[in-house]
């Protein structure tokens, strides 16, 4: 039986799509506090302002992240949501959990929280929505001791690292993303649990440029698998595709009437760098021109595979639109090896250099991508001690001024000014 009238929210149940209002009402039958979520939200819709207060002092002992405090500004009217804190649970790498773990977490959450979740947050965490301050330490104890999971990141911390399925299930993966994600999570526990940075910092691991975790769009430090040598070609399988023996795209999009497979139209002409051609019935690739866009590999997975000299590119600076507009990560390091044997040493060297600089120079609530933009890419590359390469250039220069440093000019800047003035009087 609803505790509050919610005519505005009820409208959201009327469409053909799933509705969070329906979900909330169902949950409210089990946990009456959920009626107060609906009640408060209805008032927000009427008043056109939020009735959540911003932030809070909650947390579990010793952790400066993982709990996001929320308090209602109408606690008397909606006591069930007087506190409505979020608990972020660090997901296992590649989200390989079993149903036992999910049941255990939900059991804790039904007992000690609202029972509502957001699976998963954009950082990958299992997000448990809505509990009271006095439950937090108990929840934390049960999660860590009974289930064996930890809290994720929030605030000005390293956020919970996340990764694609990687080599566990995907033949395109150019490194073991799950291993990398786990190793980095364990190495940087202090950065994850105790705020160190001017603002949030996310890192995500994709095994190949298909970028299934959207690292390039959603992480400050994006690690995207790639290869340095040539795409492996199985010419017999190429012929197989041309002859219609294998379905293109691994059988995806098969519902449409596309006609017989046309390698020119569907692969060669769509290569963004025009670096593919046929010689007789052999497919050729000018690998120096290939940008690793993955298109041809996706269409003919049996015939084309990533090269064997595998690793990852590091791109820095993606973020959602808060201060400036949304921004994708920018390529900074074209290739590093991502080896578990050396403990992902190259990755760690680069990320720590970024942090050291950003902790000094970043402004309050400024993402590293914004700090980078503020000082300019050339300066950032100098700080990172990386020589510029053509791939760093976004577009040809549009202004006529070139600023040289003295050491970059043969003979330096020394000149006889008196001699110059004879020819160019003031």
């Amino acid at each position, binding site marked *: 039986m609803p505790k509050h009238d919610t005519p505005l929210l009820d409208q959201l149940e009327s469409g053909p799509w799933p509705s969070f209002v329906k979900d909330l009402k169902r949950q409210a039958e089990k946990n009456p506090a959920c009626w107060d979520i609906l009640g408060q939200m209805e008032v927000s819709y009427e008043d056109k302002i939020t009735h959540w207060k911003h932030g809070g002092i909650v947390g579990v002992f010793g952790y400066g992240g993982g709990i996001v405090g929320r308090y209602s500004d109408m606690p008397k009217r909606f006591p069930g949501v007087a506190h409505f804190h979020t608990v972020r649970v660090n997901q296992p790498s590649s989200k390989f959990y079993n149903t036992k773990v999910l049941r255990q977490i939900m059991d804790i959450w039904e007992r000690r929280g609202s029972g509502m979740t957001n699976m998963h947050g954009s950082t990958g965490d299992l997000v448990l929505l809505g509990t009271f301050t006095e439950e937090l330490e108990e929840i934390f104890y049960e999660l860590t001791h009974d289930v064996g999971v930890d809290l994720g990141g929030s*605030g000005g911390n390293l956020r919970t690292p996340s990764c694609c399925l990687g080599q566990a299930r995907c033949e395109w993966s150019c490194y073991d993303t799950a291993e990398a994600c786990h190793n980095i999570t364990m190495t940087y526990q202090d950065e994850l649990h105790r705020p160190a940075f001017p*603002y949030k910092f996310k890192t995500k691991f994709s095994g190949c440029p298909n970028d299934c975790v959207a690292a390039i769009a959603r992480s400050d430090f994006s690690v995207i698998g790639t290869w340095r040598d040539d795409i492996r070609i199985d010419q017999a399988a190429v012929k197989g595709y041309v002859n219609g023996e294998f379905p293109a795209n691994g059988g995806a999009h098969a519902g449409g009437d596309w006609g017989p497979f046309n390698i020119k139209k569907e692969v060669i002409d769509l290569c963004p760098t025009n670096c593919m051609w046929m010689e007789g019935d052999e497919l050729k690739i000018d690998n120096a021109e290939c940008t690793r866009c993955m298109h041809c590999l996706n269409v003919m997975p049996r015939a084309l595979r990533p090269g064997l000299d595998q690793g990852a590119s590091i791109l820095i600076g993606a973020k959602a639109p808060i201060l400036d507009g949304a921004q994708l990560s920018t390529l900074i390091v074209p290739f590093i090896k991502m080896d578990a044997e050396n403990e992902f040493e190259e990755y760690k060297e680069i990320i720590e250099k970024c942090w*050291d600089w950003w902790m000094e120079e970043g402004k309050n609530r400024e993402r590293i991508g914004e700090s980078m933009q503020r000082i300019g890419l050339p300066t950032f590359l100098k700080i990172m001690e990386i020589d510029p390469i053509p791939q760093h250039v976004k577009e040809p220069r549009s202004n006529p001024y070139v600023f040289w440093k003295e050491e970059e000019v043969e003979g330096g800047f020394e000149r006889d000014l008196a001699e110059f003035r004879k020819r160019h009087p003031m």
Partner: protein
Amino acid sequence: MADREEVKAQILELLTKSKKPALYLKDMQKKVDAKPREIKNAANELVRDQKVMFWSSGSSTMYALPERAKDEDKIGV
């Protein structure tokens, strides 16, 4: 450069005297004589000692003295 105890003392003094009840690490960096990482470690040690508390909006984090952090409405971001 100050040692850990001195850095802690400087942070506590800053948090007591500052106009705002809660400060970002960056605010401390402007006033405390130490590297950012050292300030962060010292501030977190103060949290462990329960002399300082975190205040978080969810997206960024501030530090405050427990008695001043109670004044939540004034913190804001």
